């Protein structure tokens, strides 16, 4: 997540001081990503160093107010215009765990899949309930929180579907291996189980 660009975007709205930026950021993203106030000030220092923001002075109560520069506005425009960069491919601990599990002997992959499925469904239940509760009492400020919840729901749903696919593939491979072993026993011929070819994909 780009704190740098998020703060710049908020300053484009109007000049603000550090604590205001933090509060504004959290309220607009449904407090999903709490910001450390130290991070805010460090980021503001860097933005000032790069001439993207400038100190406007004191607000009379001892707060240093920052405003965005023309270069800062250009930076915000290009941030909104560019798609979010993906790590290539995005690091996904679950995919890594399963990829290792299927290649190691003695690991109960189905048990790993099921444990994850229960945890993911539980998360999906909680997100769905939070979404239902928020939608039922919706205030204007909740729109951002609903968008964040929708995003979490989509991601978690995709995870469960992918787990279903992994399990179905494991079952197919086991059946193919069993069939192949059966043929081998009955007529003495040896055939490569599709398991071998498939597991290298």
């Amino acid at each position, binding site marked *: 997540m780009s704190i740098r660009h998020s703060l710049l975007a908020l300053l484009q709205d109007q000049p603000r001081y550090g604590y205001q930026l933090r509060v504004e950021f959290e309220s607009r993203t449904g407090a999903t990503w709490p910001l450390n106030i130290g991070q805010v000030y460090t980021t503001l220092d860097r933005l000032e160093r790069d001439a993207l923001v400038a100190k406007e002075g004191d607000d009379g109560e001892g707060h240093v107010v920052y405003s965005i520069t023309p270069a800062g506005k250009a930076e915000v425009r290009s941030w909104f215009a560019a798609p979010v960069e993906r790590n290539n491919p995005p690091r996904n601990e679950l995919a890594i765990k399963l990829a290792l599990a299927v290649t190691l002997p003695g690991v109960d992959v189905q048990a790993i899949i099921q444990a994850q499925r*229960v945890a993911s469904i*539980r*998360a999906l*239940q909680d997100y769905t309930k939070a979404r239902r509760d928020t939608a039922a009492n919706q205030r204007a400020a909740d729109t951002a929180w609903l968008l964040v919840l929708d995003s979490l729901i989509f991601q978690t*749903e995709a995870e469960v579907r992918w787990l279903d696919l992994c399990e179905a593939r494991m079952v197919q491979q086991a059946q193919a291996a069993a069939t192949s072993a059966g043929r081998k026993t009955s007529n003495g011929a040896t055939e490569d189980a599709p398991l071998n070819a498939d597991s290298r994909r």
Partner: protein
Amino acid sequence: MSVQGPQQVLELAKVGRTFGEGATAVAALRDVHLTISAGEFVAVMGPSGSGKSSLLAVAGGLDRPTSGAVYVESTPLAGLRLNELARLRRRAVGYVFQDFNLVPTLTAAENVALPLELDGISARKAHRQAADALRQVGIPELADRFMDQMSGGQQQRVAIARAIVGKRRLILADEPTGALDSTTGQGIMEVLRARADAGAAVMLVTHEPRHAAWADRVVFLRDGRIIDQAAAMHDPTMLLTQAGL
């Protein structure tokens, strides 16, 4: 006799269902224990052939278990004669099927009133209750439409109205969103959720994680057995923290 709390609407005790005999016998359900209380929404998930639909059929008295016992509102289904079972199904249990099972020559209101009229309730009273059920599912204005004048989503709402009409306390739904778009599917979940919140026991068979997530409890079936259950934590803030967000 089963030991039940007053709020328990459905209980399956050591339920087994086997099709066929001897070497070709297939066990669709094995030693299933499951209870659903009033106000509880339970989703059943599992791969194809895991026994989901068999579970629903046995729970609603559409099929009899080969072993174990099923209780609906403390009544053991095994002890009922066929006509008594039919009466209990009409009065206490509502079913929603994937293919709706509506009568095309009847209007929406007539379809919904049908089980009540079959049960001997006067046509006038039955139609008043049908109108109320159609209002609960959000389509009171479609009461006089025939099925071929309604979209798939609207027909499914009629099917749900028929399942909840009267004082049914157990609602059983088998993939009720199968052929529907995702917005309509969500509308169906809202209706089922509202019925549970109003005190009915709801059991939903589904392969859609997004729909199962509306339930208070998700039961996972595999090879006819319940292998896991998931219940919501009801504290999404904690969850977000755990997710590292």
